[in-house]
């Protein structure tokens, strides 16, 4: 970093060495220094991909951890993310590929606001000579599909950080595939092993940016067989839970009212967090995956504790949900497993 000798390109280790300095710059809102750190490597002959995947992406995980631990407020986390987006943009102006390999349109699912991971993947693909159009965060399905009709890209890449947007996205996936455009899925929302991606019927799933690039190299992909294990009961129960979203949130708010004056779980307004709990419950029902809901509860317990939430707050919410969902056998088992997970946490 200190020496700028063109004959010795900065290795990945050198990128990793400034991780703390870069995270500190994000925390202080020092965009200039963050951008300088990133561009310094590229100017010294390092690869922009190493900076994206060795510095920007891993530090973003640590930004998330700082928010989870309560060290940073949600606004601070957003500010850090905004700066990271500017860093990615600055890297994009400095190094980009030829765009000769084919056209990839990249989009976050409707309701998905975590745009930075998709932006990074987009730039990695650009550096590998794909022509990439990034449609941004929370893209309405109509917009995505009309883009496909107008521009006829070779692939649609869909990004999701949270699985709650997936059930609604099945129509978007089907609409894209009807235009003959194969769909590539990526992001933790599709499950650590991509199992939700398979359920959604996408054509391919990539856990990392490198994997996405490797998959694109292997086009066309073998045809996927539709998931035969789908059952209509799950679909019905999912629709039922979604329909009761408002009622469930109100029941939980009512249950918590006589406990504490100002209750907060994460940094959002309470009914937002409760609504998201219902979204996770609905998604768990749709996927037939109890762990999905239990994992979210554990996460919520983890982030709400440093924010002063009482330990028995979440069990009370589960009780309120249970009273409203007696006709929903699978959702009830999700609530039970979630309860056990909370108890197990101690």
């Amino acid at each position: 970093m200190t020496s700028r000798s063109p004959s010795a390109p900065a290795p990945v280790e050198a990128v990793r060495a400034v991780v703390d300095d870069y995270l500190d710059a994000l925390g202080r809102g020092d965009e200039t220094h963050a951008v300088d750190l990133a561009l310094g490597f590229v100017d010294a002959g390092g690869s922009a991909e190493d900076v994206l995947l060795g510095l920007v992406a891993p530090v973003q995980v640590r930004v998330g951890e700082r928010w989870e631990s309560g060290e940073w407020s949600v606004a601070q986390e957003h500010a850090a993310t905004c700066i990271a987006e500017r860093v990615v943009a600055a890297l994009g102006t400095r190094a980009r590929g030829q765009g000769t390999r084919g056209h990839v349109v990249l989009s976050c699912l409707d309701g998905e606001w975590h745009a930075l991971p998709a932006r990074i993947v987009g730039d990695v693909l650009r550096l590998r000579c794909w022509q990439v159009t990034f449609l941004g965060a929370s893209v309405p399905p109509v917009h995505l599909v009309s883009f496909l009709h107008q521009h006829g890209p070779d692939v649609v890449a869909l990004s999701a950080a949270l699985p709650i947007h997936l059930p609604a996205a099945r129509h978007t996936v089907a609409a894209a595939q009807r235009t003959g455009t194969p769909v590539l899925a990526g992001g933790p929302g599709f499950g650590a092993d991509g199992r939700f991606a398979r359920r959604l019927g996408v054509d391919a799933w990539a856990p990392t940016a490198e994997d996405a690039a490797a998959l694109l190299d292997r086009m066309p992909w073998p045809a996927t067989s539709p998931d035969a294990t789908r059952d209509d009961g799950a679909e019905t129960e999912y629709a039922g839970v979604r329909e009761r979203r408002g009622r469930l949130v109100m029941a939980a708010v009512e249950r918590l009212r006589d406990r504490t004056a100002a209750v907060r779980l994460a940094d959002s307004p309470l009914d937002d967090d409760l609504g998201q709990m219902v979204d996770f419950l609905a998604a768990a029902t749709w996927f037939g995956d109890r762990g999905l809901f239990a994992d979210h509860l554990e996460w919520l317990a983890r982030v709400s504790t440093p924010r002063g939430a009482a330990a028995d707050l979440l069990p009370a919410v589960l009780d309120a949900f249970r009273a409203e969902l007696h006709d929903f056998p699978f959702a009830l088992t999700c609530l039970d497993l979630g309860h056990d997970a909370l108890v197990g946490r101690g």
Partner: protein
Amino acid sequence: MVEQGHDVDTDARVDDSAAPVEQAPMGATTLADRLLDGAGTGILAHDHQGVVRFLNASVRVLLPDQRVGEPLIGALHLRQDGRAASDEVELTVTGRRLRAHRRDLPDGWAAWYVDDVTEQHARMDSLLAERSRSRFLASASRRLGLCLHPGRTARAVVELAAAELAHAVAVVWPSSTGGDTVEWAAGERAAAVRSGRARAGELPGPVTAALRGPEGAAPLLLDDLAGAPWAEAGPATPWPGRSGGSAAVAGAVVSLPGNGVPAGALVLLRDATAAAGAAAAAGDTALVEEFAQRAGIAMAAAALYARQARTTGVLRSNLVQPPLPHVPGLTLGAAYRPADEGLLIGGDFYDVLHRPGSATTFLLGDVCGKGVDAAVSTGRVRQSVVALGRLVNDPVRLLEALNATMLETVAADRAPQFVTLVLGSATPLLGGGVRLLLAGGGHLPPLVVRPGGVEAVDIGGMLVGAVPEARFRARTVDLAPGESCVLYSDGVTEAQGGVDGRQAFGEERLAEVLAGCDVLPAPGIAERVAQQVVRWLGTGYNDDVAVLVVQAPIPVHPRAERHLHSVHVAAAAHPEDRAARRDRPHDGTGSHPEEVP
């Protein structure tokens, strides 16, 4: 007759049990022989050793090689263990399809009844072929109607044709960008489709003719295709014009019917050595024509859509919200989500006009209505502000001029179309802050986000473009470094949603969202508001949502320890990039002397 029949039966039985019978001499036949000869079904009888003992007239025609007194031959013969291989046999003899079934007779004898099923088979084959043709055409119709992009549609045509009609396929069509450019897509059975562009003049003659019209269609000579643009990038076979190509290939060029003029040309090449390919080639002219009809309709629809989308795109480019300019000493952010999500235009609008050396003008407004009609009005308002802004700098005077212009330009037979908007000017101050002059035209009050909280700037004012004597007011607001002014449309505060789907988002909730946003840069604030509103809406009713944030750049907190400065050398080496980052002070003091007008 009935009694005669009994006699025959008896005779036959006697005959069966008798010693080997020589073939009955002509004219000296029993009644049973005559009856058997008259049967349409061929009948053959053999003894327990597999020696033929009887043949009726029909079977002598159907199986001319079988002889009475000689062992069975061909598919009917007995195995080593003296049993027949099967009781049901299908065989082809001298070009005819026969079906034979076997019945046991007393004493180890057996009879074969042989029927000629050639016609039946032919009917069945043609039925199956017809069915597979229908299936193919149905799947073609299904796939071809699904995409409105010409390239995608051509790709589907190639894939369909390569799976069923030919071994290698190319589609050529006039490019939607006009001129003499054509686009092509080509592929071989079970291979990826390639595509590209070429000049019309480079195309082989028959293809050019087919693009002109179906009249020009002529038998295709393979040499005609030599040098076609798609052959170059393709595999050596079966495309001609490359070494090892052309030998056993039969081809056709078909014009794809469009709206008046052909929508494209379809080139089909079959490997004539493959038997199935040759058979398909013979009978499938009708099928190819049917397919070409469907492909032509799809290609023509896609071309029409592409042309209209291009036109819409050009017209729309003035109506979509503009990218924000880079303004020294200001940080800007915006978010926009129109109700008409497909076109990305709506009745809300914003704009930032930066002219170096003078104050920056910014505006956000809302014309009544939604969708395309409203969007056209927003375009007119924005254009007017750009033009008037060159002459008038003061926001109140600018609003008055806009009001007059809008009233003058309204058509005599139409009601005035008014807008609400906030129009302001921003001037960076020494020390990193920004002075805003905000004028209101009946719009929602801007919100100022400060570390201490969020305050509404009540500027009132009347609707713009409604009455000639409208009055407007302005207020001055100073932003310290990091503080922001948030302009928003009523799509934000009136968004219906929440827990029961019927609550308005409201100014209070907006202020709550903005509280604590003082550490966020302007784009982050705008996105955060849009995010909260879209979450609030859920899947409910959707109005246009627009947010514009004007911010005095956030001061950088001092670092714990000073670091190495080599990167500044790097930045100096790229002055254009330094310019792009100039809105953040380098040294953390927040002073920008060179940028204050």
